[in-house]
C-alpha cells in the first residue's frame, strides 16, 4: 500500500522551516491563505509565487517528490483552468476551439484562479511536510488556549487529536498486514466483480476493529495506571518556544504583505 500522496505526510529535515515554531507556521499560513485572495496583478502574483516556491525549495524536500505527491491536485488545478477558460465570457475573443470561443478574460481568470489554488495547496502542505503531527497538535492546543475560559475542552480535543494521529500509521500497517494475510488465504481484493470485492472487506474490517478496540482499551488502561487525570496542572514535555528564526520569518512575511499591497493594481 505504498501511496505517493504527500498531503499530511511528514518528511524529517533540518531546514529553517523545519525548525520554526509550529505556531509561527500556522499563523503565517493562515494569513497567507487570506492574502492570496488580494493578489490581482502580475507583479503581486509573482511576489506570492516567489515566496511560496522559495519556501518550498528551502525545505530541501526533493522537488520531484513534491510534484509527484501533488498529482491528484494537478488534475483539480487543470480542471479549474479549463472550466474558467471556456465559461468566462469577458474581454475579447482570442481564438475558438470547435464552436467554443475563448475570451481573454477567461484565460486570465483561469490562470489566476489555478495559480491561487496551486499556491494555497503548496503552502498549506508545507505545514504538514515540515512539522510533526504532535507539534501541530501542541500548537493548536496552545493557540486555542483562551477558549478554555469558556469551558471549551481544549486539552481533551488536543489529546484526542494526537492519539488519532499517533495511531494512523499503526492502523495503516495493521491494514496492510491483515490484507496480506487474507490475500494468502485466497481473498482477492483487487479483481473480480464488485459484489465479491465488497464481501472481501469483511475479513479485513473485522480483525481491524477487534485490534483497534483492544488497543484503545490497553491505552486507556495504561494511561489510568500511570495516573493520567487530564489537562489541569499538567506540565509539558515539549515546550513551544519562539526563537529568533520565528521573528525573522514574521519580518519576511510582513515584507511580503507590504509588497503585495504595493504591487496590487
Amino acid at each position: 500500500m505504498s501511496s505517493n500522496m504527500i498531503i499530511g505526510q511528514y518528511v524529517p529535515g533540518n531546514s529553517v522551516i523545519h525548525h520554526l515554531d509550529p505556531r509561527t507556521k500556522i499563523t503565517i499560513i493562515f494569513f497567507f491563505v487570506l492574502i492570496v485572495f488580494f493578489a490581482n496583478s502580475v507583479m503581486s502574483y509573482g511576489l506570492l509565487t516567489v515566496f511560496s516556491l522559495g519556501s518550498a525549495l528551502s525545505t530541501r524536500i526533493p522537488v520531484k517528490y513534491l510534484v509527484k505527491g501533488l498529482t491528484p491536485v494537478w488534475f483539480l488545478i487543470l480542471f479549474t483552468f479549463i472550466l474558467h477558460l471556456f465559461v468566462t465570457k469577458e474581454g475579447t475573443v482570442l481564438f475558438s476551439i470547435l464552436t467554443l470561443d475563448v475570451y481573454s478574460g477567461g484565460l486570465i481568470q483561469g490562470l489566476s484562479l489555478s495559480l491561487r489554488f496551486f499556491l494555497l495547496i503548496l503552502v498549506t502542505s508545507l505545514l504538514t511536510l515540515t512539522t510533526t503531527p504532535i507539534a501541530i497538535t501542541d500548537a493548536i492546543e496552545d493557540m486555542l488556549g483562551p477558549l478554555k475560559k469558556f469551558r471549551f475542552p481544549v486539552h481533551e480535543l488536543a489529546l484526542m487529536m494526537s492519539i488519532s494521529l499517533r495511531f494512523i500509521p499503526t492502523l495503516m500497517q495493521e491494514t496492510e498486514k491483515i490484507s496480506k494475510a487474507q490475500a494468502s488465504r485466497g481473498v482477492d481484493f483487487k479483481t473480480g466483480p464488485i459484489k465479491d470485492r465488497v464481501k472481501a472487506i469483511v475479513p479485513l474490517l473485522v480483525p481491524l476493529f477487534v485490534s483497534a478496540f483492544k488497543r484503545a482499551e490497553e491505552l486507556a488502561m495504561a494511561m489510568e495506571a500511570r495516573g493520567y487525570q487530564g489537562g489541569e496542572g499538567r506540565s509539558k514535555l515539549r515546550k513551544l518556544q519562539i526563537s529568533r528564526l520565528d521573528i525573522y520569518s514574521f519580518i519576511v512575511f510582513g515584507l511580503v504583505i507590504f509588497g503585495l499591497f504595493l504591487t496590487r493594481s
Partner: protein
Amino acid sequence: MDITFQDVSYIYQPNSPFEFRALEDISFHIPSGSFVAVIGHTGSGKSTLIQHLNGLVRPTNGEVIVGSHSMKAGEKTKDLKDLREKVGVVFQYPEHQLFEENVEKDIGFGPLNFGVKEEEIKRRTREAIQAVQLPEELLDRSPFDLSGGQMRRVAIAGVLAMSPDVLVLDEPTAGLDPRGQREIMEMFHRLHKEKRLTTVLVTHSMEDALRYADHVIILNHGKKFMEGQPKEVFVNEKELREVQLDVPEVIQFLNKLEQRLGKKVPYHGQTITQLAKELAAVVKGREAHE
C-alpha cells in the same frame, strides 16, 4: 516445489524520501522437499523475503520462481490464486487474521476461497484441528473467546487446511509458552515429512534451525550473509556474532571446550549421545596422557 531467487532486490516506497532497500541481490535455490531456516537480526528482511513466495510483493529487481510460477520485476504475475493455494503462509502473529463467527468457518475460509468442495472442507477442518492439537469441541466457539495460544493454533490450522505444497512460517511460535513452542514445531516437522512439504521457516531460534532445518540462509541488512547446511553454517561463531546472531548451544559448548581443553571436537551433526561418547573418549585420552 522448487524455489529459486535470482538477484532479487526489493525497495519499499521507491522514489520517495522514505525509500528503503529491504532486499539486495538475493540469489539462492531451494530444492523441493527441503526444510529451510531463514535467520537474521530484526529488520534484516526476512518477512519481506518470504512475502515474495506467494506473490504478495513483487521483486523490484530480479526474478522469483516457485514451482512453475515466475514472478519478475515489472511483469504481472499469472495464476496468482493458484500460487497462493499451493504456498501456505503463516504470518507473524497469525491470530490477528481471525474474523469468522466460529472456529470451523475460520479454518475453512481459505479452502472455501480456493473453491474446495464442502465435504472436503469439513474433512480438512477436522484434520487440521487435530494436527494443531485442539479439541474438536472448539469448532463451534467464537475464535475471539479463545486464549492467545489457542487462537494461534486456530490460525495455523486455517493455513494447513489449504493443504499447501509449500509451507512458509514466519516465526510461528513467537510468544508461546515453551511447551507450546515445542509442540508446534514438532507438528510442522511431522507434517513436513508426512506430506513431503517444502518448508521455509523464519526463526530467531538457532536451536530450532539446527534441529529441524536441512538448509540455512542467513540475512544481514537485506543481503545474503551465509548459506549452507546448519552444521556448516553454525560453526562460524565469530562471523555470526558479528551480525548479532547466536550459535546453537551445542556449538557454543564445543567451542568453549576447545578453548579450555585445547581439544577440538568437530561438530558434524552428532546427537547428544554420540557427542557424549566422543567427549568421554577425548577426556579419557587426556587423562591417559597425564
